């Protein structure tokens, strides 16, 4: 039951959605759309459990006075503040949007922008042309980095044209080849999951 029922579920729902795609009958289409709607609803619970875990881990940290427990208080405070603002005032509420605009947007953007500095450091320390292939990679990267910005156009008018050719020909060719390979791999993996051959996603005892 613990193994059989999940395998029946993945097989039944998966193949039903695939078959319904090819059968134009109203009942099949309607049922498939219902399952897909349930799917988006159930996905929300994946995030809810994640948030539950964040609260559990940080509450545990505070209770046991583990290292950096004081920061967990700040985390939980702002979690409650944001949730309170959203559930009481609604997602269009003033405080919720204020916190989104003046905290979440700048914090999210700044976190990602930190990578620019580390890319620069890596460019100096790690981007070394040790093999002919790495040399080709770096040459292509340098051409794109200079050609795609105004200074490349300023140095030589033909630079952007060279970059466009690189993007339209070798880049398209390789990306398309990788796309075919990845898609065929993904489809075969999807079939393995639907047929119950691949069970690692079920966790311990899935085999």
């Amino acid at each position, binding site marked *: 039951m613990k193994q059989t029922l999940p395998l029946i579920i993945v097989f039944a729902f998966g193949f039903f959605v695939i078959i319904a795609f090819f059968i134009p009958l109203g009942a099949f289409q309607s049922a498939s*759309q219902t399952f*897909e*709607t349930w*799917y*988006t609803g159930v996905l929300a619970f994946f995030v809810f459990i994640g948030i539950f875990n964040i609260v559990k881990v940080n509450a545990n940290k505070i209770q046991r006075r583990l290292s950096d427990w004081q920061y967990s208080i700040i985390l939980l405070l702002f979690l409650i503040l944001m949730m309170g603002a959203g559930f009481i005032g609604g997602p*269009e509420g003033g405080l919720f*949007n204020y916190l*989104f*605009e003046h905290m*979440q*947007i*700048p*914090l*999210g*953007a700044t*976190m*990602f*922008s930190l990578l*620019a*500095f580390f*890319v*620069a*450091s890596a*460019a*100096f*320390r*790690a*981007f*070394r*042309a*040790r093999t002919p292939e790495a040399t080709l990679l*770096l040459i292509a*990267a*340098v051409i794109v*980095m*200079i050609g*795609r*910005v*105004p*200074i*490349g*156009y*300023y140095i030589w*008018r033909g630079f*952007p044209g060279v970059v*466009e050719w690189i*993007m*339209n020909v070798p*880049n*398209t060719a390789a*990306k*398309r080849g990788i*796309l075919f390979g990845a898609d065929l791999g993904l489809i075969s993996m999807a079939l393995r999951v639907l047929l119950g051959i691949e069970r690692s996603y079920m966790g311990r005892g899935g085999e």
Partner: protein
Amino acid sequence: MNILDRISSIDRRIIFLLVALAVIIPLLIPLGLPVDVSKPVRDVYDMVDSLPERAIVVVSCDYDPGSEAELTPATVAILEHCFRKNLRVYLMGLWPPGPELGNLALEAVAPKYERVYGVDYINIGYRPGGPVMLVSLGRDVADLVRADYAGVPIDSFPLGRAVKSARDIDLVVTLSAGDPGVLHWIIYFSARYGTRIAAATTAIMAPQQYPYLSSGQLVGLLGGLKGAAEYETLVETTGRATAGMDSQSIVHLLLVIFIIMGNIILLYEKRRR
């Protein structure tokens, strides 16, 4: 210890400082480097420009604050073009923060052209559901969209009543930072209903879109902040994207110098062994 040894063991905070200065100085003292326009961006511009007055353009803000710096300038430039051409804008998003970020762009641009909410533009907010939602949206909008972004019944707006299915949509412009995004619009909307799709993506995603450009599944592409700057050039405005191009140029030059220096050090170390 000779100079190359000193350089190779430089504190990384010096590198960070050089990068920061390379960004700050051109912003304070602009160089005014000309922005060239590439074909993929011009194709988007020509597509929007060819639409008749009052045509409906869906602007789908499929990004979050992490990509705001690259995609909001593109959103603003595209909205400028749409409003200048007297096109109607139907804003939405496949990512939750997208329509809120798009709203910031609408608030900045719409008043300039005296555009009226509900008549010339509307924001229907975040639409979850990816594939299912897009298929339903194209088939019958009323099935899916009952109210706008602020919860007001959609039928109370002329533009809300005007969009019934994919047939009423002349172009979709997706500003995409990942999944769901460009691929969803191509597969579940364009492939089914034949609607043309143009995309503005983060620079990271741009190289992956070229196969779709080449196959005609995308009419054009704005890649990263440079793409937004090119579009600003075409619509003859100077926004955040153009302002940032000088800094972008100098930092790229700096990084290329770092790469060259790093490889000179590699050659020197090989020779020393």
